[in-house]
């Protein structure tokens, strides 16, 4: 296996609500290599989103360790986590979360303005095939287009990690495939380690590796010997 970019050891997350304790993660051990495309599957409440949130620096663990390269995420404070997200992580959300008052290009520029080694917003939009829509506002774009803008925004900073939580969840099949193509393309071109959470088992075929979460643990790990291209997938 090539160079490790992420690893976690015994990652545990317990939510307390009143007297009740909810164990969202029960000691997850995980390792990801640079440039890997990983799909995470699992039912609701299996802990996959909590896991993504902790390795993405949005949430803190109750116990265990999470490492990004030589940064131990589990020891970083709020400020450190913000800096980590800013410098290394790209996020893609289920509902795109574009800023409605900014055009496609401006939404991308929003991130490139604060990034250390960004690509140009135009290049990022070209990567997702939206060059000719760059001056449109989100309200003037289709759902698929908005999600591709979100991907362009996520990768424009040249992140080491791209985290996607249900990126096709709000899209129909044809549009979803376009978005997956954009993700696969970006993964190949930029070399960002990509973690994609999905309910959609069909997507597993485009991954290097597939993890299945259940009850706060990784219960199954499959390595795809041959990846399919998104166009070959259907759901």
């Amino acid at each position: 296996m090539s160079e490790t970019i992420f690893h976690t050891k015994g990652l545990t997350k317990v939510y307390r609500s009143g007297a009740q304790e909810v164990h969202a993660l029960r000691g997850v051990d995980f390792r990801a290599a640079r440039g890997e495309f990983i799909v995470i599957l699992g039912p609701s409440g299996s802990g996959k989103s909590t896991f993504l949130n902790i390795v993405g620096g949005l949430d803190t663990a109750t116990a265990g360790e999470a490492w990004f390269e030589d940064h131990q995420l589990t020891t970083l404070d709020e400020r450190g986590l913000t800096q980590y997200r800013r410098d290394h992580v790209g996020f893609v959300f289920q509902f795109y979360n574009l800023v409605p008052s900014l055009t496609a290009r401006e939404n991308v520029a929003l991130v490139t303005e604060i990034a250390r080694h960004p690509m140009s917003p135009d290049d990022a939009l070209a990567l997702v095939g939206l060059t000719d829509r760059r001056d449109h506002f989100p309200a003037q774009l289709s759902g698929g287009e908005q999600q591709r803008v979100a991907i362009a925004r996520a990768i424009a900073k040249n992140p080491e990690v791209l985290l996607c939580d249900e990126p096709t969840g709000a899209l129909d099949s044809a549009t979803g495939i376009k978005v997956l193509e954009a993700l696969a393309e970006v993964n190949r071109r930029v070399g960002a380690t990509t973690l994609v959470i999905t309910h959609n088992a069909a997507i597993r075929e485009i991954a290097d590796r597939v993890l299945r979460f259940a009850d706060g643990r990784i219960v199954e790990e499959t390595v795809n010997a041959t990846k399919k291209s998104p166009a070959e997938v259907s759901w």
Partner: protein
Amino acid sequence: MVISPLRRKVLRDLRRLWAQVLAIALVLAAGVATLILGNGAYSSLYETRARYYDDYRFADIFADVTRAPRALLGDIREIDNVLAAEARIVKLALLDMPAMVEPGTMLMVSLPEKGGRGLNLLHLRQGRLPDPQSAREVVVSEGFAAAHRLRPGAPLTVLMNGQRRDLLVTGITLSPEFIYALGPGEMMPDPRRFGIAWLPRPALEAAFDLEGAFSNVVLKLAPGASVDRTIEALDRLTAPYGGAGAVARKDQISHAFLDAELKQLSAMVKVLPPIFLLVAAMLVNITLSRLITLEREQIGLLKAIGYSSRAIAQHYVEFVLAIAALGIVIGISAGVWLGVGLAQLYARFFSFPFLIFTRDPQIYGLAAAVTVAAAVAGALLAVRVAVALPPAVAMSPPAPADYRARMGAFRRLFALRQTGVMVTRHLFRWPLRTASGTFGVAMAVAILVASLWSFGSINHMIDVTFTRAERHDALVAFGAPEPARALFAARQMPGVLAAEPFRAVAARISHRALSRKLSIMGKPETPTLSRVLAPDLRPMAMPEAGLILSEALAEALAVRPGDRVTVEFLEGARRTVTLPVSGLSLGYVGLGAAMEITALNRVMGEGALISGVALQIDETGQEAFYVAAKTTPKTGFVAVTALTVARFKETLAENITVMITVYVGLAAIISVGVVYNFARIALSEQGRELASLRVLGFTRGEVSGILFGELATVVLAAQPVGWLFGYVIAFGMVQAFSSDLYRVPFVIGPEVYVTASLIVCVAALASAWAIRGRINNLDMVEVLKTRE
């Protein structure tokens, strides 16, 4: 009792949005409080005065004469419509108090007649009235007694007509004639240096050589009688006895100052409450609009399950009515509390035997009705949207906010980053709301500008009056005109460095149908101690023959330099002449007319007479001068500039703290109310965007910066607008308050704008600070999962 679910929702909404609800309720409360305070104080003061006047038979007409035989009173009583007339002796005396070095004046007044026929009756607070046979028993005004800690039984020494008299205080009283007791030559009441004493008539007759005569007459008229015609008739009768022209009640000093106060209160009621109610209506509108947008789907659902549009409208109106009710309760409490405070303030300035604090339900009812109307008016526009929503449309999420504005030029001009673009586009996306917020903050600035300017103006007035015009240290006014050689005697007094004579002659100046009664001042050709200033503040030389009129007088008579006016002298040979108007002068207090002293004596047909002297005094010789001035028989009264100015500033300083606290409080309520609500709405609309930015790696500071940038833009844009509004309001106030009594110079220095803006910005910062916690705790995980 079963509470319907919608009503329960109202209660929960109120609890959930308590901070915004409170902010709006406070703005409404400020409107209610100022309305109650203004209307309440107005009617309290008005009714107290009316009752006082009625119960104590306050006169309608007042006239001074030099010396008139008591027999004249019979003729005066014969004038049509005169219900009662009383001949009095009213004369100035000098105080001689062992504990007081500085000069003080006592107005000696003969006691009103007994048996229900007298006028200007006294209200005895302590002790008893003097024995009519006694030559030394006296009752004194309450303020004076308090300032000197006099109680019945205390001795009191005065110099009447140059002679020392030891008197005995038997009682302490109030009089409707001296509710506002202003001493001669003073600008503010100073109960320490000016008091009123009432003595039995015979004692005063003896002291002032007025046996069988009187020096003052007061008249009570039948209701509806013509004051002007009575004055004409009275003046005809008194003219041969040195009558200097009668004055109507409206020109009587104490009454006129009360009128000015009433005028100010009614102006306050016209300006302040509407501002608050307007801003509150606006806040209700923007807050409710946002609430309805957020509850769109619930509204659709309610309609779908069969609630009528009317029930839904009623639901939101109830929410607003609850806010209004809270505002009314707070406002009424604050209004009553402030009312008591104002009444205490009045008690310091105005001497009333009682104060009727109006609890007229109409005042409260009006305040409540206006407040509810303002709140509901603000709600209606927003509620209309809820009513118009078809259920099917309402249940689907709203279309995404559509931004299409191109702002290339704007953006290049300000070199905006993307976050700046967000701020700008969001502000332009809701132009009405942005305008409302700007307007609201502007009104806070305006209230401050319109209240703070007056202090600067008053300082300017003092500075101009006492360092440029009246540059003397003391002014001695003689009891009666003296030959010019009295000037040389004055120069010989201890401590006197320089002396300058003046002549003051009562006269009526008229031009066409307009006329005014005042004192014409005669001054040396180039006066140095008591100067007349041109409107550009340059000292003016006295013309050889013409008159210099103050701008206020010229305006009142509608004359310009070069015009001729008729001057009817009310003293001496009582000549009537026409004189040219040679120039216009600046004058803030009263109406002024000046001419060269020898020219004045010449046109009057008198020899070289002077009425008094303006003096420059050596500081070390001050006390010796005070003693000498007091014991000179010629002295009518002595005004000491430093004491006048000090008293003025002292009074101002007392008021300034109260006024600034009140106005800063009011402005802060508006700024906090507007900025806080604006911030909460902006956060509610953009919370999701901002949380997304946090996920993308924006720091808390950067994210707060976006929201605060929006607030800052609104607050900053509001400043010049507020300055302008404030300027306009202040200008309106100057126009409204200008009277023959005084005119306030309209001076607004940059410090007024700066102070107003600083106060509002601090209040805005505090409100922004209050929502900082909400920005810092934006839920990043939530935004990944949910659609708005």
